[in-house]
């Protein structure tokens, strides 16, 4: 059934990585991505990869889980590897027809694959160890300076929170409507693309109407609970930096510095 699909890739846990302030994690992911793009040689990549592995180890998330998550990206990774392989400059090592593989090409391919894999795996670590709500809170807090220039930061965070809340409800509802229309003989499985698209109307119309009705009722219920925008709002779980967050920031800075130094030496 549709509702068995688990949404949001959060694996609850009690490790230091899980407990870290979401803001710290968000900033560190950005630092990590910058470091990844600054890394030039094997030593730089090794440093970044080492840091990621350390985080994975502390968070007790199985490497297998991350590798499984990378699977859907396999095609893109292979394609990048192949393209880089053939676009290298310099003395060809192997040559056939119009293709040539150079030493630089191989290097490029390996680094590109490493870069993509590490990039995706790093962001996975963020969502694996942070609940969607914490993530939203963190984003809102980090982006709050933008409120000064009139950006609707709170509203966006609220929308994200509500969307997360209603995804399972709407999936369940889709399930129900589909069953009900099937009971009236609707056929979603046969026919050409056009026929199949048309067969979706009996599902989509009730789903949209229901979503609008829900939105309307939710808005009233929120008003009844004194919602009046982000102004003067407090939080049940106020974000607090703890010792581990400062340590994490320092380690992140060290990693970035390390990568920059290695880059100067072309490593």
């Amino acid at each position, binding site marked *: 059934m549709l509702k068995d699909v688990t949404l949001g890739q959060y694996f609850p846990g009690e490790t230091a990585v899980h407990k870290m302030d979401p803001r710290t994690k968000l900033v560190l992911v950005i630092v990590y991505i910058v470091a990844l793009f600054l890394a030039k040689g094997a030593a730089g990549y090794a440093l970044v990869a080492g840091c990621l592995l350390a985080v994975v180890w502390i968070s007790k998330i199985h490497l297998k889980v991350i590798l499984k998550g990378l699977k859907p990206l396999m095609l893109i990774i292979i394609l990048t590897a192949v393209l880089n392989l053939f676009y290298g400059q310099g003395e060809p090592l192997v040559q056939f027809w119009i293709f040539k593989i150079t030493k630089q090409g191989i290097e490029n391919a390996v680094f590109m694959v490493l870069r993509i894999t590490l990039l995706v795996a790093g962001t996975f670590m963020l969502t694996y160890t942070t609940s969607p709500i914490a993530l939203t809170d963190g984003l809102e807090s980090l982006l709050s300076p933008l409120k000064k220039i009139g950006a609707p930061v709170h509203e966006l965070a609220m929308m994200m929170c509500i969307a997360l809340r209603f995804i399972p409800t709407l999936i369940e509802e889709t399930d129900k409507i589909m069953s009900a229309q099937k009971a009236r003989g609707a056929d979603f499985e046969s026919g050409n693309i056009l026929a199949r698209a048309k067969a979706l109307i009996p599902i989509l119309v009730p789903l949209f109407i229901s979503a609008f009705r829900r939105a309307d009722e939710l808005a009233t219920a929120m008003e009844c609970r004194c919602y009046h925008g982000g102004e003067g709002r*407090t939080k049940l779980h106020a974000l607090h930096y703890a010792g581990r967050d400062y340590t994490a920031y320092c380690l992140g800075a060290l990693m970035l510095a390390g990568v920059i130094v290695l880059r100067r030496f072309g490593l």
Partner: protein
Amino acid sequence: MENAIEIRHLAYSYPDDTATEHVVFQDLSLDIEQGSFVAVLGHNGCGKSTLAKHLNAILLPEGGTVTVYGLDTKQEENLLAIRQQVGMVFQNPDNQIVSNVVEEDVAFAPENLGVPSEEIRRRVDEALEAVGMAAYKKHAPHLLSGGQKQRVAIAGVLAMRPKTIVLDEPTAMLDPQGRQEVVSIVEKLSREQNITAILITHHMDEAICADRVIAMDDGKIIADGAPKDVFTKIDLLQSVGLTAPQTTLLLKALDDDGCALPLDALSVDDCAQALFRQISQAKA
């Protein structure tokens, strides 16, 4: 006793294009006493929900006044104070839960009111305790039963520390067990915490335990009094599409057959006792 809500000559009509409940209040006056448990009955479209929405300024009167704890609902600066005092629970629990963690949802209202974090924590725990959902505070609402969801919704309102709770058909979508859970919590809140409870319903059985029953039809109050006074007016109730509890109907049927029976034995126990007395008497 102090009045929680005073309605004077309320007039209201929906604009024609939103004819979901095309009800007109022409001249409705009503007082609700602080701490009382009031059940409002009426068939679909009789104006119950429209009345409820006037109690916390979701709708504003076109004529007359609605005064909530001395505050006129028409005055905009009173809005937050009114909504904090008069909490509202709706029919579909799914459409009033905001967050995907129970405790975060209960915290929503105090967060909006700018209550400090430690105080929110205290209120959330208290509210969840009051509805018997403390064990579920970290759960995802969509995995709870209907009755449990509705209890979370009540906790979400309680966290504002309101003096009145209005429940607009909170049990319509629940199974009997869920209905029982919700009604007994409402009764408890009213009895133990002196919260005024206004329960809108069309399940007559739920109104039996109220202090006062108000029956409505076509935007008018047609009966208002203690449950045993209202439910004994069976013909009046039936004429507006309502009915009395089965116990009363049974006593009425037997009474019509010529057995002198009191019609105001509403609960199963009272009804059986009344019959028992009569049967023993007949035997003797």
